[in-house]
């Protein structure tokens, strides 16, 4: 199981080392780390999620990526709860013999996760972050 939904922070170096440890068949490792950007209305946000469905949704996205690309391994971590500006929110790591597969799979996972995993962002000012049309549109290229 390589999907984690957690309140705690994560260590990208340790995650990458754990994935490559003891093997020499991986050629390309791509990571995406999403960070909380400083906001106009205060520097904290809260990520609400749907326990149970979140894990299922991320596992389904990972399975879809593994079906589409030659992946040797894959890791997805998504945090929830209160997060300050600068904090890590999400981490996606893909390993493949080939760089293009690793890049595309990581982009695919991020594109689906943005609009299909049940998370909702609320800014410190009290407003819920609106879904971006650009995020929905980004799914189009994978269909």
């Amino acid at each position: 199981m390589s999907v984690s939904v957690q309140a705690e922070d994560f260590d990208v170096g340790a995650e990458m080392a754990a994935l490559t440890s003891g093997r020499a068949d991986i050629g390309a490792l791509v990571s995406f780390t999403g960070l909380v950007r400083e906001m106009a209305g205060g520097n904290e946000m809260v990520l609400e999620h749907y326990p149970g469905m979140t894990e299922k949704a991320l596992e389904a996205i990972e399975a879809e990526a593994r079906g589409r690309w030659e992946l040797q391994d894959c890791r997805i971590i998504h945090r929830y709860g209160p997060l300050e500006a600068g904090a890590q929110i999400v981490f996606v790591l893909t390993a493949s013999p080939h760089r293009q597969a690793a890049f595309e799979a990581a982009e695919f996972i991020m594109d689906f996760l943005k609009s299909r995993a049940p998370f909702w962002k609320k800014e410190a000012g009290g407003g819920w972050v609106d879904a971006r049309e650009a995020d929905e549109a980004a799914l189009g290229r994978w269909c």
Partner: protein
Amino acid sequence: MQVLYFAWLRERVGLPREEVETSAATVAELVEELKARGERYAVAFKDMAAVRVAVDQELTELGASIKGAREVAFFPPMTGG
């Protein structure tokens, strides 16, 4: 059946989840029943274009069947990542 609400739907309805007895066959019929419960529900479900639904933790459409479902969740478009 458990009905769950997230984000501003939770705030507008005023609770995160509730047990609902229903004979509705589809999500859309369930929404009509809920709206009839009072002002808070009517406000929450006013703009259904902004509401997403999951039946037993699978994203689906308003027309989907809820026969035998254990859990129906309503929430705004997702903003993860």
